[in-house]
């Protein structure tokens, strides 16, 4: 009898360890299954916040994308202090390099959550909240596609290809082809228009750290410069100016100034630290990106913006933009000064009688000499002066098919410069993309 008892106990022990079926069910502590996680305006907003967080990462607006457009111009160079931006500054990139690869991936990573928002079956409850968020998503998607098209599209290298346009999350098409430049620009324009239609300005909450209806308008004024639809650019810019929500602030103002339309914020608990713009622009232990003397020389003696430069202990000239050692300077995506310049440019192109007055708004405010005529060269010069080191210069030159000219011995590209149309003016499509996507073509020359 005793023996049977023991055997019975043993049997129970064996069975007891054959736990319940959820023994093998894993815990998810920092993530949720996609299914059932997009069910409210709040969920959509979480995705929007997530997209903004990727947008302000180091490999995109947090640093790299801004720096690419300065070190590839006459504004700045790379001293290679920490080995950073040497390749882009030399116009020397390989498809396997980290810069083209990580920025490509990051840009599409921003688009992924936006596509979930845009294609969500969630209907607006009538208060406009869901539509507003969708409009915000359209605006950012337009911004990202515009950047993708500029960085990887073949405008500056004489081709017609843009980038793959992805409008749905996880739609099963894992081999998207590159659209043409025209198709890409059309998609950007359509997204911006859709955004304008979806966003009720009454729901704008005044934050410059997120997209509101004015952001969309301001971006439209930039967009139409690229498509050379000058009248539309003028109208979009004018709408922002007439809206009266913004005004010029000091040449480099603190975060959240009257000049800010969209700027990406950082917090003490969430900033880029040594991978920030501050760390690369200022004389820190990285400090790879000083400015050229040529840029400093553009400013009149009385121009307030001339004070935005200093010489560090090594004798290199640096910008005072993005100066904060707590890394809390918000990244300027679009600000009122640019809208004023977009307006002036559109008027100049349209030979509008008010063009010169529009162009001189900013120099007047900055204490600089005013221009005598509204010419494209003057517009470009004023854009260079006002928007220096904010990631605009390279594409301003490319829009007008200018060559990249060597203006400073510290610039490391060949002395003869890079003529417009050269393949090096376009980033290579990452090798990793070509490998996994047979339908994606490489840019000429790489």
């Amino acid at each position, binding site marked *: 009898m005793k*023996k049977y008892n023991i*055997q019975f106990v*043993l049997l129970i022990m064996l069975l007891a*360890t*054959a*736990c319940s079926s959820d*023994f*093998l069910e*894993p*815990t998810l502590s920092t*993530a*949720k*299954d996609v299914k059932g*996680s*997009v069910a409210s305006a709040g*969920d959509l907003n*979480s*995705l929007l*916040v*997530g997209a*903004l*967080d990727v947008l302000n990462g180091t490999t995109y607006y947090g640093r790299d994308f801004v720096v690419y457009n300065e070190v590839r111009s006459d504004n700045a160079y790379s*001293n*290679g*202090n*920490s*080995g950073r931006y040497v390749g882009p500054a030399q116009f*020397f990139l*390989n498809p*396997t390099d980290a810069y083209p*690869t990580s920025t490509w991936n990051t840009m*599409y*990573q921003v688009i*992924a*959550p936006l596509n979930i928002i845009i294609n969500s079956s969630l209907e607006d409850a009538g208060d406009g909240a869901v539509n507003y968020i969708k409009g915000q998503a359209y605006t950012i998607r337009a911004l990202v596609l515009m950047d993708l098209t500029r960085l990887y599209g073949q405008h500056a290298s004489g081709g017609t290809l843009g980038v*793959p346009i992805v409008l749905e999350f996880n739609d099963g098409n*894992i*081999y998207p082809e590159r659209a043409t430049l025209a198709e890409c620009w059309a998609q950007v324009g359509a997204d911006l228009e859709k955004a304008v239609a979806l966003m009720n300005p009454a729901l704008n909450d005044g934050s410059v750290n997120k997209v509101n209806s004015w952001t969309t308008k301001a971006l439209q004024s930039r967009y139409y410069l690229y498509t050379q639809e000058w009248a539309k650019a003028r109208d979009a810019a004018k709408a922002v100016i007439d809206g009266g929500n913004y005004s010029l602030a000091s040449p480099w103002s603190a975060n959240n100034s009257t000049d800010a339309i969209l700027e990406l*914020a*950082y*917090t003490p*608990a*969430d900033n880029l630290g*040594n991978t920030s713009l*501050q760390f690369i622009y*200022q004389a*820190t*232990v*990285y400090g790879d990106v000083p400015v050229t003397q040529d840029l400093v020389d553009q400013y009149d003696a009385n121009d307030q913006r001339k004070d935005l430069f200093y010489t560090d202990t090594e004798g290199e000239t640096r910008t005072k933009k993005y*100066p904060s*050692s707590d890394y809390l300077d918000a990244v300027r995506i679009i600000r009122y000064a640019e809208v004023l310049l977009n307006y002036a440019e559109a008027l100049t192109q349209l030979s509008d009688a008010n063009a010169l007055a529009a162009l001189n708004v900013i120099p007047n405010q900055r204490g600089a000499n005013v221009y005598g005529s509204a010419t494209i060269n003057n517009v470009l010069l004023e854009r260079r002066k006002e928007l220096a080191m904010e990631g605009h210069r390279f594409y301003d030159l490319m829009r007008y098919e200018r060559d990249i000219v060597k203006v400073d011995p510290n610039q490391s590209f060949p002395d003869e410069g890079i003529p417009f149309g050269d393949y090096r003016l376009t980033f290579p499509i*990452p*090798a*990793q*993309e070509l*490998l*996994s*996507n*047979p*339908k994606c073509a490489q840019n000429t020359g790489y």
Partner: protein
Amino acid sequence: MSKILLKLSSVLLLLITANFTYAQERIVSGKVTSAEDGGALPGVNVVIKGSAQGTVTDTDGTYKLTVPTQGSSLTFSFIGFQATEVVIGDRTVIDVSLSADVTQLSEVVVTGYGQRSANSFTGSAVTMDKSKFQNIPVTNLEQSLQGNVAGLQLSTSSGTPGSSQEIRIRGLSSINASNEPLFVIDGIPMVTGSNQQTTVSGNLGVLSAINANDIESLTVLKDAGATALYGARGSNGVIIITTKKGMEGKPVIDFSVQYGSVDRAIAGPKMLNAAQWDELYYESLVNRGYYTDIADARANDDSGWDGVTDTDWRDVVKNSNAITQSYDLSIRGGNEKSNYYVSFGYMQQEGVNIGSNYERISGKVAFSQKVGKKFSISNTLTPSYVSQLGQLEGSAYFSNPDAAYLFTWSTDKPTNADGTPNLNLGTSTYNPLYISQHDIYQRLQTRVLNATTATYDITDKLKFSSMFGADYLSTEGLTFNNKNYGDGFNSPNDPLNGSTAMYVTRNFNYDFKNMLDYSYSINENHKLDFKIVYEAQKNFNKITGSGGQGFAADDLYYTNSVGTVNFGTGAISDWSINSILGLVNYTFKGNVFVDATVRREGNSRFSQGNRWGTFYSFGTSWVFSDEKFMSGIQWLNTSKIRASIGKTGNAGIGLNEYQATLSYGNSYNGEAGATPGQLGNQNLSWENQVAYNVAIDFGIFKKITGTVEYFNRRTYDLLLNVPLSGTTGFTTQRQNLGEMVNKGFEFSLNTDLISTENFRWNVGMNFTMLDNEVTDLPVDGEGNEIGITTSTTIITKGQPANAYKMRKWAGVDQQTGSPLWYNNGMDGETTSTYSAAELALQGGSPLPTKFGGINTRIEFKGIYLSGNLYASYGNKAYDTWAAYTQSDGRFTFNVANGYARQYERWQKPGDISPNPKNVFGNTSSSGSNSTRRLYDAGFLRLRNVNVGYNFPASLLSKIKISTASIYLMGTNLWTKTKDPLMEFDPEVQASGALSLNAPPLKTMVMGVKIGF
């Protein structure tokens, strides 16, 4: 079995003795010990030569025997040891130490689920001799496996003491899933790798918690037959550790101490000295076109060199006084009913880089008790505390001392006139003298292992046993950067004022096993053993961490004191495994054996429908030397052939990978956000392997034993990170695709060249030939293979995994001094335009294709000398940072120093030179990825030399000491690399990348062992 035979034979012997006792006799007594560790050997047969008279030794190894006048010598024999004959002469006390008999097949194989006699074992296993892993001055016991086990290859990811090592048994079983073997200690699967949040600053391997001197036996299981019991966890091989237990008898106390020095195993790359660098500086400016000639350059530019300073930064970062020391004390004893083993150990080892240090305090309590006749219980508790002070490593961090010595110019002084570190270096690297004093890269680890086993003999033939193992690990990491200089400083205008990051990672793992064993003999020719095992294992991991910046004062290290807390983290994760296993052994006539297992295993890493897999193994062995028809062959000793086949799974991937998730780890402007975390794959399931193994184990001439083995392992449904178009928002997706085969031969041979009482000479060797090939890969929509590439390697069909693929360096253009590459990536036409050259397979991969070891031991009258030579070749290593250190002027004068061999460069048309024209800030791409940076990684290394003396027991007994020995040992004493360009240590991490990690160590120690 063998024990019963032993008892029987000794009883018989005693009976016989009683019959043949003569009148004139004397009494001889003494003690028998093991030559290897000096431990007492109980149960040794002591027989008077030429007679059947004899006795067996007691539990303390002593014996007493009445010897007739005509008895001239005694024969001492014991299973597993060499029989030894001793002339009695007129002695009455004869102490003998027996050497392990390596010419016999080891008697038992420890499988972790019990022991099997070696003859009946159908799988492939190697049991390591204790002398190969005990008292070796290494922090992680796995370091002593290299060269001692055929088929096993170890890669050193870092030489920082305590760092985990990468082990590959029989090649790569997987491409993206785990390749690491399972460690099992006292029947409990261990958590391996490292238990920490970030690997930026090296890593602390959790196995370093184990004190090798507490280990009784170490067995490596290699084929599917042998590892079947462990299921998927064992698919990359299993390393079985049993720790020391108590023994019946009076208490035995052992004490050992070891002390010695630590150095670099090899010197490391020689860099340009100051004069060379200075000369190249001006030349590079002229070559760039800034100046017309050198004189012009010297007149108008300044290299910054004072003309005197010439620093070898290799010496600066090195701790020339680094030591290693260890102390171990153990006591064991017991009676018929219970026994115990208690130990305490302390070890310290300094790394060769300044500031690097490792300390371990470990203890162990093992206790076992018999309750009644049928029930017994035992428990082993192994707590340890490890402290590691490491460094930043693995990349060109400014604070990494291994980067500092490659990058910092020889023209910079290490110290100022007042002896303080020079903080004004020309390069961006930080002075390691200051950093090692003021920054902290620390890990503290507490590990408690507890294993409880209970067995109950239900009947003679039916046995139940239950094992519960708990493994608790708590690792605290602290990364602190001081506020005055280095990573915590930033710039004078914008001081960061120091920064800190601290993490606590806690891991709890339990494993619960219940087993039923049933033994059934049909008749004397047919015997069957059955086993059923149920096992459940679960792991919980919890991380908390915080960090910030801005300290008000020095000597404050923790988040509590920072001005700005800039991160906080907390997360949990878990995994679990559930399985049931059935095993049958069939024995025919005691010399033919058949094993079969079937295992059903579930793993939480897969979705509900794909969680469970069924695996099996089948093995057989035939001891043909026991057959009657072989008995006439005198030179043949125990020999067998064996074969096994089995299917196992591998689930060694990240957690939750099958789920399509939104990740909630993002925040923007204080608001929590979500982004698509992973694409997921509901179809994800087991990676499968089918492996077979055929071997012959032989013994000949009573002197030589050996094994020749062929293995073949096909892995299919690989858990592959398939590259995905970045346009999806993801770059990879885990899929079950592709196939890979590892196959090869293993040879091992052991021979006793000389074996007499006073002089013994043994030589052993093992050699492995390995062939790894990817045999199938996924294809894209157009049917093209989706290879998995890095900038220097590719995974592609028909090649070994991670085959090197890059541009091929074609030297320097004699006329222009431009770098050249082969247009087609192989041969023929060359180009000086980097992008015009094609990428091509360059042969070889990071995985060695041939490796092996030779070891020998010579013993003469208690003095012994042993050595172990290891060779490995067939693989290549890639010099990751040579883009900077071999840049021909691109980075030499603003970022990093160059290799000394850069001095030999092209200067004028007609020069034949290995290095191109030296041009300041050039864009020639000469330093870009190419075979110029790919080295043959073959090497030969003297891993271990040991000279010692075992004091004779007769001498020691007078001072009440039972054993004593003294020794001198060196590890990694000498290294020869095949490629003269390979100036780094050739024991490269498994990826083949030379990544600025702390170098492996050379140690020289002296030790003393005493037993009471």
